[in-house]
């Protein structure tokens, strides 16, 4: 049994009253520790696919199991816990919470998990230090540069040591040099922590550097 198994997943959205089927009968297996890239044309449904896997969006139909456990049958609280404990998200924009400092942003998942407050902040600070952001810990997102923000966002995604990292064009808003730094970090995380990662990207060099490559087209996922 694969680490993540998707079976017959359907998802459509509605535009001007018309139904657009973005995922049609998608089935996919991802093994533990894999680093997968997903490419596709704009609007092909890459983000939707990632949201469905991350349980942020409910598919119309289909099955997904995670380590053999059926995910789509969970209720809201269980889904939230699943996202909190097993999934780390990184988005194209950093999506940090603007009212909170970098440190508080990184500690937030642990707080949501209701871990001890002091411990959560210690862990968050340690992680920021490892990422070379200790001096920016008490700054709010508005005062951070693009690359710094994205690294804080990555730290927030990783602070609870998720089993699955879902990255949606993490370097889309960054210049090539800064983007390369994020790529480096992603590969390190995959290698050192053994985190399984699915990375949606437009960046050809990043996609080529991944061990497994997928392409989303016409509602189906093909190996690329």
């Amino acid at each position: 049994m694969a680490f993540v198994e998707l079976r017959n997943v359907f998802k459509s959205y509605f535009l001007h009253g018309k139904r657009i089927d973005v995922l049609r009968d998608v089935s996919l297996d991802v093994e533990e520790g894999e680093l997968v890239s997903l490419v596709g044309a704009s609007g092909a449904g890459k983000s939707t696919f990632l949201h469905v896997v991350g349980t942020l969006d409910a598919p119309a139909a289909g099955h997904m199991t995670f380590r053999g456990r059926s995910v789509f049958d969970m209720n809201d609280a269980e889904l939230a816990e699943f996202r909190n404990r097993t999934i780390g998200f990184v988005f194209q924009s950093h999506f940090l919470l603007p009212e909170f400092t970098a440190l508080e942003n990184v500690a937030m998942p642990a707080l949501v998990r209701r871990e001890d407050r002091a411990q959560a902040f210690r862990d968050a600070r340690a992680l920021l230090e490892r990422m070379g952001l200790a001096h920016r810990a008490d700054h709010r997102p508005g005062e951070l540069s693009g690359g710094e923000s994205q690294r804080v966002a990555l730290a927030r995604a990783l602070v609870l040591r998720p089993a699955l990292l879902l990255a949606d064009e993490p370097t889309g808003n960054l210049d090539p040099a800064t983007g390369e730094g994020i790529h480096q970090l992603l590969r390190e995380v995959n290698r050192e922590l053994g985190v399984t990662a699915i990375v949606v990207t437009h960046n050809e060099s990043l996609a080529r550097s991944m061990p497994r490559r997928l392409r989303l087209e016409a509602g189906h996922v093909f190996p690329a």
Partner: protein
Amino acid sequence: MRSAERQTDYRLGPLWVGGTLAGVGALLLGWALTVLGAWGPASVGLALSAFGFGPLLQALQGLGLLPLVRAMGETTAASPGALLWAGAGLWLLGWGVVAAGIRHRPREEAPSPAQGAPLHGRLQAERDFSWATLLTYGGGILAAELTVVLLQTALSAGVRLTEAAERSGPFSLPPAGAFLVALLAGMGVAFLAGALGAARARRLAAPEATLGILYLGLPLPIFFTLLHAIPSLSITFGPRLREVTYVAGLLGRPELGYWLVFTGLVLTLVLGITVGFVLAGSGRVDARMGYELFVARRHLEVFRPRFLLKLLGVLLLGILPPIVLFAVVRAAQAAVERTRIRMLGLQDPLKAAEALHRLKAKEQSPTQTMTTLSVGGVGVGVMALIIVMSVMSGFEGDLQDKILGINAHAVVYSYEGEIEPYEGVLGDIRKVPGVAAATPFIMNEVMVASEGNVSGAIIKGVDPATVTTVTSLDRDIVPRDAIQHLAHPEEILHRGDALGGAVAGPEAAGEGHGLPESLQDDPIIELPRGEAPGAAAPLPGILLGSELAHSLKVVVGDRVSVVSPLAGGLGPQGPIPRSAAFRVAGVFHTGMYEYDSKFVYILLQEAQRFFNVKGALGVELKVDDVDDARRISRRVLTALEGYPYRVKDWGEMNQNLFAALRLEKLVMAIILSIISIVAAGLIVATVTMLVLEKRKEISVLKALGVPDGGILKIFLAEGLQIGVAGGALGLGAGLAWCWFIAKVGIKLDPEVYYIPSLPVRIEWGQTALAVVIAVLVSFFASIYPALKASRVEPVEGLKAE
């Protein structure tokens, strides 16, 4: 997607037939009602059926109201009854046929590619309607109402609940206390039902709640309202429900009481539903508030000391002046700053741009302004409620003090007129638990005449030894021990001495003895006093109210005559008046014009002699708990074994006055609560704006693993923060204003109000209630936006910018 959409077919045949049948049924019903002459009550039923939806339910309701119609109809003839049934039956049948003519069928469509695939769990969990939830909510509200009614009856009627209670005496509470306990218990039931229902259904289930309240909650308050309108109902159920109707009657308008209690129970049910949904709506019970509060506080930041102090200042200084002042100062500042920037701009555009940026950074965001307004609004509402309620309590308390000061808490009369001998009765009464003191009295109407003036008065013969234990006649009386002088007329001060205050008693008495001629030279009364005219007995004493003394132009030591037109008995030419001379022993002041201008007091024995009675006309009581006077009176009556005695308590004697006061206060509170409703609107707007502003953050939080319930809690906490901050501000400002009014005082025209300045009495219960209401209102107000927030789809907020 599934082919869930359906089409509706209308078959014309059944529609026509059913419509005709129903029409004939309606005509028959109308005819039957006309024959019965029961259109009046039936229209009540029709009005009630406006709550129902669908003709079927209306017809059922109509049938359910038949017994009522019959109870009210004058005729009980059988034939209109049959007509009624036939009409109702046809009416139902017709609608049934109509319903059969309407068919839903699935829309035909090409099969979707997902045909047969399993439905996602979250979509599966969406259910439209649950009868179990409806029954939980409806049953809950009904059970809560029954709890209030039954517990109220049980507690105040003294039902023995356990053996232990039996041993320690009957388990019974004063009516107001019993009502409070019953109300709290009922609210508990409603809350639990709501919480359980919502936790089980994992949704708010508004349709179920509405239907449950309409069909199971409304009948009881409607029944109670009709109880007062329909005599036959009142005869059947009135005695059994007397405890409930009594408490409601304390308001003067019992219906208002029932509906207020009903509203309270519905609100508690809704509160329970919300709490149940918040705690368990996500599928797991989670009452903790860790990160939720952290996020909520960062979003709003209402508990900054400077912010709160500024708002408190605005509330304390009369709201408008500080705002005007603030606006003027800000305008001046801005003018100065912009002029400076303009000057800078001529020299160094970069510096000017920086200054402009700083100026703009100082401006508040719309959400901050809204937050300030909402907190201020809640604060104003609470403050107004506290001040007005305290002043009204002040007036009420003042009035009650004055009435109870001069009147007893309860009076025992006899249907036989006189209580004779009264000593035994007095002893029996004093033994009743709850009775603090008792004193006999004789009361009658007389004329009081001085040298120049005459005035009608109510004369009361009292026992100086015990009268002060029952009434506070001695509270404001000149001279201080004037009441004791009644028993010792030789000690009564002479004219001019009273002002001296501490005149030595014996000396004054000596002078009194030295002037026996005043007895003979009575210019008003020709008749010598009944007994021993030659003896140098001093004139008996009399106490006058200050207004009466003023209008008679007498002071302490002066003589007055008391004339009773009837006390002399019946002579050949009709009733013979009797008169006697008294010396003014003291002047009392109660502050109530009615008492100060009408009441005079003499010694009980003098009154017995004057009115020719042997005993007393009644016994006045003082009870330990003023609010429990009614029950203690009943106990006294039981101790006296009923007839010929009867007991009236002060509430009964002044029922209309206090009912009017209470109603006035209640209406005032309701009107002032409108401010809170406006504030609630502000809170809805503020939290909605927050939700719109934070869509992205909500999505991110959900991605981080916050369940819908967590989002709900965050935004409820934000609304609650506004309520708590506003409530605290209002409490502070309200108490400060009350303190100001009490200490500094606002002068009143004593001619009109009989009180020198605005009275204030802070009742902690109602003050706390004002704050609690504000907090609850803000909680209710934030439910809707918080629900909206919890339903934000994470995907929407996470779209790349």
